[in-house]
């Protein structure tokens, strides 16, 4: 006995009308990609659902991968069997013993599309239910709120058994919302912001500001590790590493200390926006959470946001730190983020940055400095890496042989 196929239910896509096909196609492509190395599986789709036909492949790894794909509301493994009551009983027991979650209560719902089948729904329910109760311990029937509602569908060609509902990742299919650039610092928040944006169908590329020798190679490595985690979702992540030392040194020299943070953030925005333009993306994503630090107060955001009219997505803006940490832990990025290395935000932080910077003032200070040429230079010298899932080494492929 083996599982025959997996039923995939669409989430929000099912509310779409004429543009539904585009979403479904994106999701199909993503599912095909994620299952490409599992032999035998075939994906079919109709307007309401998709089916992964297993053709002998084990269902557990398939479900594991499908669980991470955005756009899927829920999944159910199903068994296809011949129209024989004894086989149906055996299959039902098999199904019950192979659910991912423990089942303590159950009920059986039979649908008899083929009325020529010699048993009616009641008889089928009782036969199968009795068989399950006889062959298990501590299993109870609960018709109101069962852990497992085992659906038995009798059709002319075969009988189908399904029932376990496994939650999918929700959200919208990868790439269905276009592309955006994530400012990835190496802290706890930005990977979470990236994840949530990806969940809404964005194709995300990362931008990291790297300031050697003020920040160590470890902070750069941290960003690559984080990107490697996020890459697990879509297979790879592009990371733009911007050399930022010169700009930071110029800011230190020319901008009054209490405004240096505001100007730094404004310049990061300008550089990021330039890269966004090159990559033909349509938004910037930050991990800002309102009021968390000096640069994330309303006044700061008002002063910083002035440099661009590109949409800036702030998925974490209303979240508390504890809520963000909870997601980071689920994503397994928390431990990477929490490593104590200096990053570009911490080294140059003034002792008392302005929490209420003013646009006029920051513009006035910046008016004496020519940043434009340095921005151009930083953009042109930006290093672009494509990070694969779980990748640890950025360049040294020779090291891979060691393992």
């Amino acid at each position, binding site marked *: 006995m083996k599982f025959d196929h997996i039923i995939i239910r669409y989430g929000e896509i099912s509310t779409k009308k004429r543009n539904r096909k585009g979403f479904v196609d994106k999701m199909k492509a993503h599912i095909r990609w994620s299952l490409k190395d599992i032999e035998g599986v075939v994906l079919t789709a109709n307007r309401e659902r998709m089916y992964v036909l297993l053709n002998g492949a084990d269902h557990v790894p398939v479900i594991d991968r499908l669980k991470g794909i955005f756009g899927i509301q829920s999944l159910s493994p199903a068994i296809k069997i011949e129209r024989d009551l004894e086989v149906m009983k055996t299959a039902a027991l098999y199904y019950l013993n192979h659910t991912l979650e423990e089942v303590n209560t159950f009920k059986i719902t039979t649908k008899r599309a083929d009325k020529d089948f010699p048993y009616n729904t009641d008889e089928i329910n009782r036969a199968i239910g009795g068989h399950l109760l006889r062959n298990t311990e501590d299993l109870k029937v609960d018709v109101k709120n069962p852990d497992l509602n085992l659906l038995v569908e009798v059709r002319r060609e075969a009988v189908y058994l399904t029932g376990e509902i496994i939650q999918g990742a929700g959200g919208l299919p990868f790439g269905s919302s276009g592309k955006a650039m994530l400012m990835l610092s190496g802290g706890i928040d930005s990977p979470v912001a990236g994840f949530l944006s990806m969940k809404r169908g964005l194709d995300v590329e990362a931008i990291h500001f790297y300031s050697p020798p003020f920040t*160590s*190679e*470890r902070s750069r*490595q941290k960003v690559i590790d984080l990107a490697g985690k996020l890459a697990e979702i879509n297979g790879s992540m592009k990371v733009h590493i911007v050399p930022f030392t010169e700009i930071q040194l110029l800011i230190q020299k020319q901008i009054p200390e209490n405004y240096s943070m505001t100007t730094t953030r404004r310049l990061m925005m300008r550089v990021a926006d330039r890269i966004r333009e090159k990559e033909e993306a349509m938004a910037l994503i930050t991990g800002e959470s309102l009021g968390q630090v000096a640069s994330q107060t309303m006044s700061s955001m008002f002063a910083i946001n002035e440099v661009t009219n590109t949409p800036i997505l702030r998925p974490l803006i209303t979240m508390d730190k504890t809520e963000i940490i909870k997601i980071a832990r689920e994503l*397994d990025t928390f*431990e990477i983020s929490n490593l104590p290395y200096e990053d570009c935000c911490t080294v140059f932080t003034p002792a008392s940055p302005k929490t209420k910077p003013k646009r006029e003032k920051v513009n006035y200070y910046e008016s004496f400095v020519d940043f434009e040429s340095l921005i151009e230079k930083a953009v042109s010298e930006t290093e672009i890496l494509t990070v694969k899932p*779980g990748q*640890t*080494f950025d360049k*040294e492929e020779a*090291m891979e*042989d*060691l*393992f």
Partner: protein
Amino acid sequence: MIYFDNSATTKPYPEVIESFMKVTSDYFGNPSSLHGLGVQSEKLLSAARKQIADLLKVKSSEIYFTSGGTEGNNLAIKGAAHAQGNRGKHIITTAIEHPSVEDACQSLTRMGYEITYLPVNEFGQIDVTDLKDALREDTILVSVMHVNNEVGSIQPIVEVGKLLKQYPNVLFHVDNVQGTGKVSLSLREANVDLCTISGHKVHGLKGTGILYVREGVRVDPLFHGGNQETKIRSGTENVAGIVALSKALRISMNNQLLYHDKLQQIKTYLYKGLKEMDGVLVNSPEEGAPHIVNFSVPGLKSEVLLHALESEGIYVSTTSACSSKKRTISKTVDAMFRHSARSESVIRISTTYGNEMEEAKQVLAAIQKIVANLEKIMRVAK
């Protein structure tokens, strides 16, 4: 030469030695150093940790590197006992553990801990109901080996884990030094909290090992110092050995997938051949691990047979290598059969991937010849 003493140690794979040489000469930086050389070493360390975690299907943060099986077992048992000591002082283990488990437990009795030793049957296995009966209010730790090092019996680790799941205050330690790469064990399915693995038993290098510590389980360190390995095991990491270990484990587990059946065939051949031999008693259970066959020739001292085989170029061992210097009887065989002539005359054959059926045939023929010859002499001596 026929090397049939793979439970004592295995020959490192050439690829493993290559990795070790390369890392130890090219990436010698201290992983805690802040400069680039340190960063490279740290990268290697975390890549090795990740590879091992993936192979064992656990998280990277649950893998701790040690110097081997003895340290792993000591750290698990003493570390868990010290961390949990205020909740209770009762530990349960089996009568057939490796000395590094038995003596670690024994050393705790001086600090007021009580140890219960579970008996084994003639198949070298404990009874889970015995364990259930032995559990008390103040039990803090259960330590059961996966594959016995002397006879290869496999303990019901999954059942023990399922039982202990109902006792959330009791930690579960598994000494998997002999089982790794030979007999599969899912740490998650068996609800294992602590698991010891040794590098040189899986064709890695001596002085390397792994202790798996499940997330959320607290273990007090044995070594204090630079707080490496998230404070559980201070001391500069043996990066080259660890990288070599990650490779050895990968190759061994791959070989397990490819050549398990061949290993089993060789064992079955030896098992049946010895069983039919006059004067020989097989101590290993038929359903045991696929790489260990233990037998006795009552009346014949193990060492005599061992040296006779050695003169034919065949290397085996008497009891476990760690105890063989003590000239004592085989603890496991004694616990299984309570028969002193049997436990004084024990020989252990242990194979690994790469051993051939042809070698097994030669070994069996040699044993047959030697036993027949020696028995004649012994009878004359009587």
